[in-house]
């Protein structure tokens, strides 16, 4: 469990990125922080592994106040996946995945064997093990990034818009892959995105943020969709328009579903209220 308690962050240049933020992130589930740029979502994520220290307030991981933990040690116990994969360009795929195990003193041969197993986990062919990041596609690089994040078998996995820079087709492939991995491994995942569809797809708990890390609404995707807290949430999740604003029409005795653009979305099956 990760607990934010009245956390604020003011950067040296004076911007207040996060103000009085409190949240509990349950273990072994996926929590998605979603908001536009300036909502402080990345700052909040980076506070968990002390890449950013809060100006005030406290963050606890399983009752340990992380400000008392040594940053390097804390970071090595938490997986981190970033937007542009952040792979080391001068190291091969296998060495990239094995970076943290090697730092922690795992033997080379063992680290490599584990790296190869992780490549299977994230759906990368083992023949890519000795390639360099620059020889991979964007989607493959992100898979390597995920494998690296999992390399120390961390309890917590932080993901900072990991699929933001790949094309939509690859993105949805990676999202499905993550759902599959999460079903097997059940990590505590904290995922940052600005894409509400991605948030609803991946999140067990979704946290909608306004500017300055103000929580607009917290809940499961279904709760938020069914009961948007205010106009901001309503607009953000697009409940009032497009393909989420569904209505039912009767056509020759059957109920069909029409979306907000007037397009036919489907047919209402049995069990539907009349």
């Amino acid at each position: 469990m990760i607990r934010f308690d009245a956390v604020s962050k003011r950067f040296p240049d004076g911007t207040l990125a996060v103000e009085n933020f409190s949240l509990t992130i349950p273990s072994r589930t996926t929590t998605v922080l979603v908001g536009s740029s300036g909502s402080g979502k990345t700052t909040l994520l980076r506070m968990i592994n002390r890449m950013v220290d809060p100006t005030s307030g406290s963050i606890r991981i399983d009752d340990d106040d992380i400000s008392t933990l040594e940053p390097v040690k804390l970071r090595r116990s938490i997986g981190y996946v970033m937007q542009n994969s952040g792979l080391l360009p001068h190291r091969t795929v296998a060495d990239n995945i094995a970076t943290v195990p090697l730092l922690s003193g795992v033997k080379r041969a063992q680290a490599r064997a584990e790296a190869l197993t992780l490549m299977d986990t994230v759906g990368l062919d083992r023949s890519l093990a000795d390639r360099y990041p620059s020889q991979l596609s964007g989607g493959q690089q992100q898979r390597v990034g995920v494998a690296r994040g999992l390399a120390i078998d961390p309890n917590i996995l932080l993901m900072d818009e990991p699929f933001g820079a790949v094309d939509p087709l690859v993105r949805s492939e990676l999202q499905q892959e993550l759902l599959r991995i999460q079903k097997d491994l059940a990590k505590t995942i904290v995922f940052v995105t600005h894409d509400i569809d991605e948030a609803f797809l991946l999140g067990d708990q979704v946290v909608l943020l306004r500017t300055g890390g103000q929580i607009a609404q917290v809940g499961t995707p279904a709760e938020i969709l069914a009961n948007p807290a205010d106009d901001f949430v309503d607009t953000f999740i697009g409940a009032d328009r497009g393909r989420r604003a569904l209505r039912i029409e009767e056509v020759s005795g059957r109920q069909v579903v029409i979306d907000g653009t007037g397009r036919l979305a489907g047919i209402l099956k049995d069990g539907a209220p009349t």
Partner: protein
Amino acid sequence: MNAFAEAFAWIGDPSHWSGPDGIPTRLAEHLAYTGLTVVIAILIAVTLGLYIGHTGRFRGASIGATSALRALPTLGLLTYLAIAFGFGIRLALIPTIIVLVVLAIPPLLAGAYSGIESVDPRTVDAARSMGMTEWQILWKVEIPLALPLIIGGVRSAVLQVVATATVAAYISLGGLGRYIIDALPVRDYTKVLVGALLVTLLALVLEGILISIQRLTVPAGVRAIRTSPPLRRVRATGQNASAASRAT
């Protein structure tokens, strides 16, 4: 016979290849001054440059100081040091090495800090997020990626020092400058040209060696970017992957 032919004939004369004023001795002295200078300057400037590049501190100050160093007239400084600090002729090596080090610091410093700064900040950020210590970031990420630029700094420093080490002869030391300084007063222009030619040749040879080293230090993964376009959308199948690796 033109001047160059005379100079080459002088160099080709076997009697000029032995003794204390022979070409091998002068060449060895010249290389010794250069080597000593560059080693000392690297210890000072590369260390400082890595620090500045990694922390981003003192960057402005170092650029200012470096420009000031560049403006110092070598011969003037040499004479001043030799006289003002009483090194005189007996300890002539000390002021000579000092002025050459002063000359070598700016390119070394610039190479080191611009090398570190050229490393993608996102790569450094990722390394830190994974739990690398600052030392590990420097040694395992920044230096390997910056090495070609650091060596580039060494290259220009060596070039400048080799060319300027002729001043050692000005205050009684040896080196290839000896030919120039000795021959000027007696108007032996052939010998002056010999000195200049040998310095030029030496500089070219060292430059060639350092260019090769610089090429070798480009990390394989970075070289892959330059030699082949990234293989986009190669699906993770064994067949495609092996075809692609043949292509690289």
